[in-house]
């Protein structure tokens, strides 16, 4: 494993060197901007589209979180997204008022000041009472849904650490009652994953996936795994794991996994997305500002289980 990591590091270093970029590891707290190119947005940026970002496993309060947050602010300047979905592990460790500040409010201050709304789901590291935190917009609930401010989209934030019968019944009720074209679920534990450390939550998948299929969920975002992975669409659903907004488990994606459409476990990242009509566009951006994945996806239609393929 160590050899593999070294090889990866070497390959990356060479790539950076070849690109003529400074091979500098930023010192903690002394860099205004992590080394690397400026963020470039490849999304179409259509008028009237819903623009949002996705982060997972973000709440360390460490250098990587701040650097990713700066990249997000750069991206926002080019691509003013309305909201951010948080995929859990929003605050690692202690959760005193100063921790909320250091691990959330301060790194994302430029976005919060610009009026970007964050919507949190809870991970296994999160205190349950985060549900009351005003800037997480959970409305006091461990799981909730909300309609996006633009386009015909509804998001469903689930609590994957405790999927009891009450919640599953709620999920079914909410999905059934939702008339939006786009239904997007987000929560902490991935139903599909090529992670060597955790892997998929198969028991959870057995309960949730039939509901997602029955009620036409098009996309599912999860964290927990400290890397980026876009899964080959499963039964027409786009599954994406984004758990590297601060934490990183380098080299953890199992090589040659048949379900990986695109994986990135070399650095931290975040994802920006855009929905316009039946199309969703996505772009994953590394802490260094590089685009590590991009493509589009067509929503599932209610009369079929097949969504359009994700493509680059």
């Amino acid at each position: 494993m160590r050899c593999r990591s070294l090889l990866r590091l070497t390959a990356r270093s060479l790539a950076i060197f070849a690109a003529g970029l400074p091979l500098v590891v930023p010192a903690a707290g002394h860099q205004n901007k992590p080394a690397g190119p400026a963020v470039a947005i490849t999304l179409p940026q259509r008028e009237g589209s819903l623009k949002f970002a996705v982060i997972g496993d973000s709440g360390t309060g460490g250098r990587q979180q701040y650097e990713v947050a700066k990249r997000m602010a750069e991206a926002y300047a080019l691509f003013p997204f309305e909201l951010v979905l948080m995929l859990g592990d929003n605050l690692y460790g202690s959760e005193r008022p100063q921790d909320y500040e250091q691990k959330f409010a301060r790194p994302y201050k430029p976005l919060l000041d610009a009026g970007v709304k964050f919507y949190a789901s809870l991970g296994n590291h999160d205190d349950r009472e985060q549900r009351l935190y005003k800037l997480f917009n959970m409305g006091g609930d461990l799981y909730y849904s909300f309609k996006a401010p633009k386009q015909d989209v509804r998001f469903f934030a689930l609590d994957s650490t405790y999927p009891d019968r009450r919640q599953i019944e709620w999920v079914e009720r909410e999905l059934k009652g939702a008339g939006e074209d786009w239904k997007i679920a987000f929560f902490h534990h991935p139903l599909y994953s090529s992670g060597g450390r955790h892997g998929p939550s198969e028991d959870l998948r057995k309960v949730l996936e039939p509901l997602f299929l029955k009620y036409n969920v098009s996309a599912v975002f999860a964290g927990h795994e400290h890397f980026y992975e876009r899964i080959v669409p499963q039964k027409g659903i786009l599954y994406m794991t984004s758990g590297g907004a601060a934490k990183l488990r380098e080299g953890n994606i199992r090589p040659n996994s048949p379900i990986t459409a695109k994986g990135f476990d070399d650095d931290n990242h975040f994802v920006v997305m855009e929905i316009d009509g039946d199309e969703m566009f996505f772009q994953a951006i590394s802490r260094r500002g590089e685009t590590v994945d991009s493509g589009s996806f067509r929503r599932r239609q209610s009369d079929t289980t097949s969504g359009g393929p994700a493509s680059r």
Partner: protein
Amino acid sequence: MTVLGVLLGVSMLAGAAGRAPQTPSPAQPQTQKPPVNPDAKAIADFNERVKKYLELHNTIEASLPSVPDRTDPKRINDYQAGFAKQMTAARASARPGDIFTPPVRKIFRRVIRHALRGTSGRELRAEIIDEYTRPVPLRVNGSYPSDIPLSSVPPRILEALPRLPEEIEYRFVDRQLILFDNHAQIIVDYMTNALP
């Protein structure tokens, strides 16, 4: 039907089968009480104890200054600390096993073992243990340390165990099962060797 339901059903059937040869004689009085399934009785008792805990929880929560659904971290911390303090004071005499009584512990171990049978069960068990990072001191009324992740509880286990009110959750700490008050953030009760 839940795993617990299945097991209780099997237990009832087994009880009935065991009594089959003892056909009551016509001379027996008709006022004989119907047989009580000991598992069902223990679970009913468990539910009753949880209900009593919840009544106390609700009474104390109602006495606290209300917290809005959207508030700041200081109010969240104050509310939580105040809640835990009052619950702990009100339950000063609480002991391990007050809710997880010996018969309940026995049933829960059997039910969880049943839910985790087979290859997928072994994988699930590993998934639960996976999030256990360091020992958590288990103490009734003790707080759950915020630097330790909460175990995720798979649907299969939650489906198998008696349903709890939303203020209380089952969580695993290594092989131990705790009842966790998710508002006061305290350990209500715990049982050892819950996972096989």
